[in-house]
């Protein structure tokens, strides 16, 4: 099983996200992350999908996406040629005895302290999804109170844009 990152340009219209996720659900595609946002142009929204599966299933996922009239362009992003990042907020219970250890680990992962009280701390970490998993694993020895993640966003490296590739 491989993990694929797929960027999807869709018409920026009401209900499009529902059409895409409904198709994923009924065809049982294994989606580990999905984000959607507006783009540099108002006509399009951009969906970034992390999909786990075999090559044949990925082809099927792309073909099925193209059958939705609201889908304008689908592009698989290779890990090497793209930048993929996700933001996580993680809230930890913090007793005096572990405070320094936790903050040291946070520095190790370039995490930023965005809230701090006597009893707790919220760390903001931006990294690729697997690194975020590693941060969580590392913090399990402490008391994790809450986690919230944005899901992965991804852009290809270099000056080329997805819209240029679409229009080629």
């Amino acid at each position, binding site marked *: 099983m491989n993990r694929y990152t797929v960027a999807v340009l869709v018409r920026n219209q009401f*209900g499009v996200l*529902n*059409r895409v996720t*409904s*198709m994923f659900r*009924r065809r049982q595609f294994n989606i580990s992350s999905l984000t959607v946002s507006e783009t540099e142009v108002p006509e399009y929204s951009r969906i970034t999908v992390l999909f786990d599966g075999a090559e*044949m299933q990925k*082809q*099927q996922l792309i*073909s*099925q996406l*193209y*059958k*939705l*009239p*609201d889908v304008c362009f689908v592009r698989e992003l290779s890990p090497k040629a793209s930048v993929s990042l996700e933001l996580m907020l993680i809230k930890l219970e913090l007793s005096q005895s572990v405070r320094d250890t936790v903050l040291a680990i946070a520095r190790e992962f370039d995490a930023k302290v965005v809230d701090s009280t006597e009893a707790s701390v919220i760390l903001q970490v931006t990294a690729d999804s697997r690194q975020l998993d590693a941060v969580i694993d590392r913090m399990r020895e402490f008391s994790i109170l809450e986690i919230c993640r944005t899901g992965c966003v991804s852009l290809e490296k270099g000056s080329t844009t997805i819209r240029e590739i679409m229009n080629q």
Partner: protein
Amino acid sequence: MKLSGADIIVKTLIEQGCDVVFGYPGGQILDVYDSLYRFSGEIRHILSAHEQGAAHAADGYARATGRVGVVIATSGPGATNLVTGIATAYLDSVPMVAITGNVMTSQIGYDSFQEIDITGITLPITKHNYFVGSVEELADTIREAFQLAMSGRPGPVLIDVPKDIQKALCEYTPQEAVCPLEKRTAKDVRIQAAADCINASKRPFIYFGGGVIASDARQEMLELAETIDAPMGCSMMGLSVVPTNHPRFLGMQGMHGHYASSTAMHNADCIIALGVRFNDRVIGDKEKFAVNANIIHIDIDGSELSKTVMEAHSLRGDLKLTLQKLLPFVEEKNRSDWQADIERFKQEGALYADSRQGVTPKNVLSLLNGYLQDNTPIVTDVGQHQMWAAQYLRFKNSRRFISSGGLGTMGFGIGAAIGAAVATGEKTVLVTGDGSFAMTLQELATAVSCRLPLVILIMNNGVLGMVRQWQTLFFDKRYSNSVLDKKTDNVALIRAFGAEGEKVSDLEALQKALDNAFRAEGPYLIDCAISQDEFVLPMLPPGGTVDDIIVKAGDEA
């Protein structure tokens, strides 16, 4: 000129060349019905007994003509009653536009009376659907819906129109009827590679489906078959593309396909699949399916390519155009060894032919064959009678076998037959079973009031025959809820609806009844008793291979 949304709907339908719509009125679609009343000189409305019947009728109309079928229903239950009809059309790639009313925009989302989220409900069973938010976008939405329904792989599209949009006024300018979106063909290099594969093969087999009808590629396919000296077989959706008696045609594939056809595909070294899916009903165990064959697949829908089986060459494109580009690259060859094999398969298949006397399915349908004209639409419901019709009836022209393949919708028949009869004006035959017929028989009222020339042949075995067959084979004859034992008098029933019919139990009486039926002007029902223990054979058990084919009763033991 400013028109109301309702008038714009009807005017745009007329502009798109739609001359007949099927439907059922109700509160939230009243404005459209008022427009239909006023424009009744330009567009005909067929009132069904139930919205499901109207949806199947629009489907039957589309299958018989290739044009977009249109169905109209009100909000809430009117809309949900369409669901089975829309899903049936979706699974069989039938171009259809469904228009539903909904509560006024300000009441959407409040669980108002007869409010239902029909765009949400039909999301997975339409190519696309629309909730119309303003009257300004209404006409273009309908045009886009027609275009989507007929383009690429056809299918149903739904448009949900709130009542206030139907009432709102807007400028309307008529436009030309839309054309399908531009057709594409597969890339030259891929076509060349596929041709090389065909040229190198010793035992090519053409497996085709409904895509040949949709793309009108019959001529190109027959030319390919002649050039490479290949036999042909089809999925159920491909029936009627090639005349049943065509010398290269071996018959239907799949669970109840013809022996020679299934055996030939299994022994082929190159399967050329044209506008057809590798559905589980056709391939059985996909790990063991045609392991020695290179599969070449041409389809307009990219998602069908390499979906279930590994393909050597997947060509995405319009079938007709792609075949036209492929033909110059394939070499003319005689493959006499392969033809000798085919002859042997045919002879083996003939050994298993049913030669019994009496009211067997084969004899009943053979009699019916004598009454069929080249253009007679033959419609079926779903179950044993459907498979027998697929196996034994003789087809001459495309679009004349109309049957629910993908969804397998019992109750499809009478509605679809109404649609086909309205579309073609031909005497239309519905072959049905007592189970399927009972599901939607209220549409007899529609057939009678429209005086449609329907011959309804019920193959009545008093049981749910296909369920019973599976229970016999795979559930140790525990006939759970498959014995109907209904006291319904079908002849009295059709009389109650205002038409004639008769009950028969031998072939002589059947012949007379068919004489009467084909002479009658309106609907005529024949209730033909057959044995409850008839099997559909041959049968490829689910998940099995061609080696597991059951060819005669008792084989399964």
